């Protein structure tokens, strides 16, 4: 192993539509509305049994996209009681969200999944998406600042209830200790939120925040570690070539700002199946609709080649998010011919039903900022007495 990569390597899968290839849907035929939930469940259970670390769900696009997508947080929530160990990561656009609602939605997902929620922060200037709202989202030059502000407020809301705010103290009649509930001291440039949240502190304390490089400044986001409040725990790296991923990873780890806790590379895959080689499958799919470059690395070939690639990537990053060309063709190959070998070679860790997503990713459960501040004050006053 090369650089300072700690914890087990993680492999997640994007579970959107019928796959990353634009012809994926056509290749499956039309899916009736009544089958959506069943299909989602079957794919998620296959992924969990295969030992994947997380599933991700893409956000709704603006009006320019015709690809029907169910709400990402709700898809994740639907799967929460049906799964036990797999992380459930929803992409949500920070620029178009109400931070108060978004914080509550992700906290609720985290509670329903017993600590398996993650948020991929999206922030882009899609004019069609902006037109969907009756208020003006942040313009292009303000996007990064706005996304950071939203993340900061969402994180502050997660901490606005201390873990033991519910006291159920019968003698005084108090269900809550209001000293352990906090109004926010974080506000954005374009909005403010009074707080506290309507939802108690989520299971992980802070659900995992992920973002592509550049969406937010890299940093751990953990107050105790000096990261910016509006930072990501995990940075998603996107480069067309394996070498590019390595360069991005080295740059991220060398950045003067606090280094991100973990790096995950984006990788599109089209794999050999029992019926056809990856090249044959791709040729067929491309005849229906060409798969233009998305800026992500793309692997085309057999399971053995993918395993070798992942082993090389494991020396520079902490995990990958795979984007299968056609979920129902590529996911079974990942489950039977890739993941078992990664586990056998101890590249990935064993899956455990009691682990949170933070646990799987090797991230600590953060101490509540308000509790930390209160205890620090307590120590000071204790010293002076």
């Amino acid at each position, binding site marked *: 192993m090369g650089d300072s990569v700690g914890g087990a390597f993680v492999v997640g899968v994007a579970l959107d539509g019928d796959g990353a290839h634009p012809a994926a849907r056509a290749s499956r035929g039309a899916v009736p509305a009544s089958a959506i939930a069943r299909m989602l469940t079957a794919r998620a259970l296959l992924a969990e049994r295969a030992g994947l670390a997380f599933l991700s769900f893409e956000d709704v696009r603006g009006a320019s996209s015709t690809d029907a997508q169910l709400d990402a947080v709700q898809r994740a929530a639907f799967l929460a009681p049906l799964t036990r160990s797999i992380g459930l990561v929803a992409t949500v656009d920070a620029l178009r969200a109400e931070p108060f609602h978004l914080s509550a939605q992700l906290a609720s997902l985290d509670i329903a999944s017993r600590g398996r929620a993650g948020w991929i922060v999206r922030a882009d200037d899609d004019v069609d998406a902006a037109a*969907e709202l009756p208020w003006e989202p942040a313009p292009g030059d303000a996007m990064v600042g706005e996304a950071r502000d939203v993340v900061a407020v969402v994180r502050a809301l997660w901490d606005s209830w201390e873990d033991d705010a519910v006291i159920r103290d019968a003698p005084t009649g108090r269900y809550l200790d209001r000293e352990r509930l906090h109004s926010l001291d974080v506000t954005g440039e374009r909005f403010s939120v009074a707080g506290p949240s309507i939802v108690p502190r989520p299971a992980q304390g802070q659900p995992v925040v992920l973002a592509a490089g550049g969406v937010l400044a890299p940093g751990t986001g953990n107050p105790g570690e000096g990261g910016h409040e509006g930072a990501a725990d995990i940075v998603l790296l996107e480069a067309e070539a394996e070498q590019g991923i390595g360069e991005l990873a080295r740059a991220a780890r060398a950045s003067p700002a606090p280094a991100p806790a973990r790096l995950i590379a984006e990788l599109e895959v089209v794999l050999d199946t029992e019926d056809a080689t990856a090249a044959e499958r791709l040729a067929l799919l491309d005849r229906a609709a060409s798969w233009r470059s998305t800026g992500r690395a793309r692997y085309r070939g057999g399971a053995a080649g993918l395993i070798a690639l992942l082993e090389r990537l494991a020396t520079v990053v902490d995990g990958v998010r795979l984007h299968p060309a056609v979920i129902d063709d590529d996911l079974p190959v990942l489950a039977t011919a890739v993941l078992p070998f990664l586990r056998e070679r101890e590249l990935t860790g064993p899956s455990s039903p009691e682990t949170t997503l933070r646990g799987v990713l090797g991230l600590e459960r953060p101490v509540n900022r308000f509790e930390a501040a209160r205890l620090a004050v307590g120590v000071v006053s204790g010293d002076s007495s």
Partner: protein
Amino acid sequence: MTIRPRPREFGFGVFFQAVNSSTVWNTPESGSQTDFDSFRRLAETAERGLFRAFFLGEGLRLREHLGRIHDLDVAGRPDALTQLSALAAVTERLGLVATLNTTYHDVAPIAHRLSTLDLLSGGRAGWNVVTTDNAWTGANFRRGGYLDHADRYRHAQFVLSTVRELWDAAPEPGGPDDAGEILEGAAVGRRDGIVEAADAYGGVRIRSRLPRSPQEHPVIFQAGDSPEGRDFAARNAEVVFTAHPGFDEAVAYARDLETRLAAAGRSRDEVRLYPSAEIIVAPTADEAEEQRRWVREHQIGPQTAIAYLEQLWGTDLSAYDPDGPLPDVDPVSDSTGETRGTMLHGRRAKRLADSWRERAGAQGLSIRQFVAQLADAKSLVGSAVDLAARIERYLDAGAADGFIVSPYLVPSGLDDIVELLIPELRERGIYPSEYAGDTLRDNLALPAPLTRR
């Protein structure tokens, strides 16, 4: 379209309150208000009892009392649509109804998230449409207290109509691609799956992305109580959720609604009336009374009784003895009861305080006893046989098609209803023995949505 008469059948919904003093939290039977398992257990019990729906309210700001966070009642609850999406995975027939405020949610996310729940659940979603305008709530949102009080129902109508347009604009072979609606001060239109709409508070241009579920639209619930709210319900609601479970009040509400429905050109048979009620049922009347006393004792502790009066009085009453008479001082003028998100101004507060003092004085009730008696007005207490007979009377008077039950215990609070009361209702032939269908609309025997006939 011909509207079929309402079936002579009673229904229940369950309202996981998560706020208010109705939930007993201080006994060994009191479970977590937060863990998903509490919600799941209640939902599973409800489904076992063929309940029509599981209902969640919405918190937009943590309740305050006299300017501080209210700490005496259960608090902290999940985002409704997120939680109901999770419950959709572990239930099969139970309706899943989310409260969403039209002031602090925008059209696009309301339409899309409700459609998502409707599709994930196979047509079991409902939307309880509420509106507010107060800036105190708005302090948690980007636009703050942007909405004028006078416009709140007009804006709610705009939001609801636009959401319906989006649902109607869902891709459909051979369907019309051009339609629209002119509202007072607003315009809503659609073409090629894109809805454009605007009112005084902004315009939107949204593509309808999701197909309709087997029930076409989520079922529209409404709980307005003001004259404007009742008119809004008469124009739009498929289920009216009222705060009047007492028989006489329920009959009066039903008559009032009938008048408003007629004015809106709608029939009483296309609306279901579901008062909200606490139900305390036991094998015998004595046991039910004993249970009622237990519930009130735990709901209305000394601090809660005082806090209840403080909401009206608008001032600290902690010096008063909860086991003594009501305060002889008058409410402070311009008092605000933010715990309830409403405002009671000076003269109205004094009038109400006078009537309370008179009632409590005449019956010799202490503060705690008096507040417990107020809770009794929201409650049906009795043996299973007696309650079944009383419920049949509501049904025959058209005063209720069902009750939305607020369980006083989580998660076991529906057990007695399912085990004791429902069998008695079946005996009387006014309760189903199986779900009528797969969707919430089917199970409420409702006609097609207003814009889909």
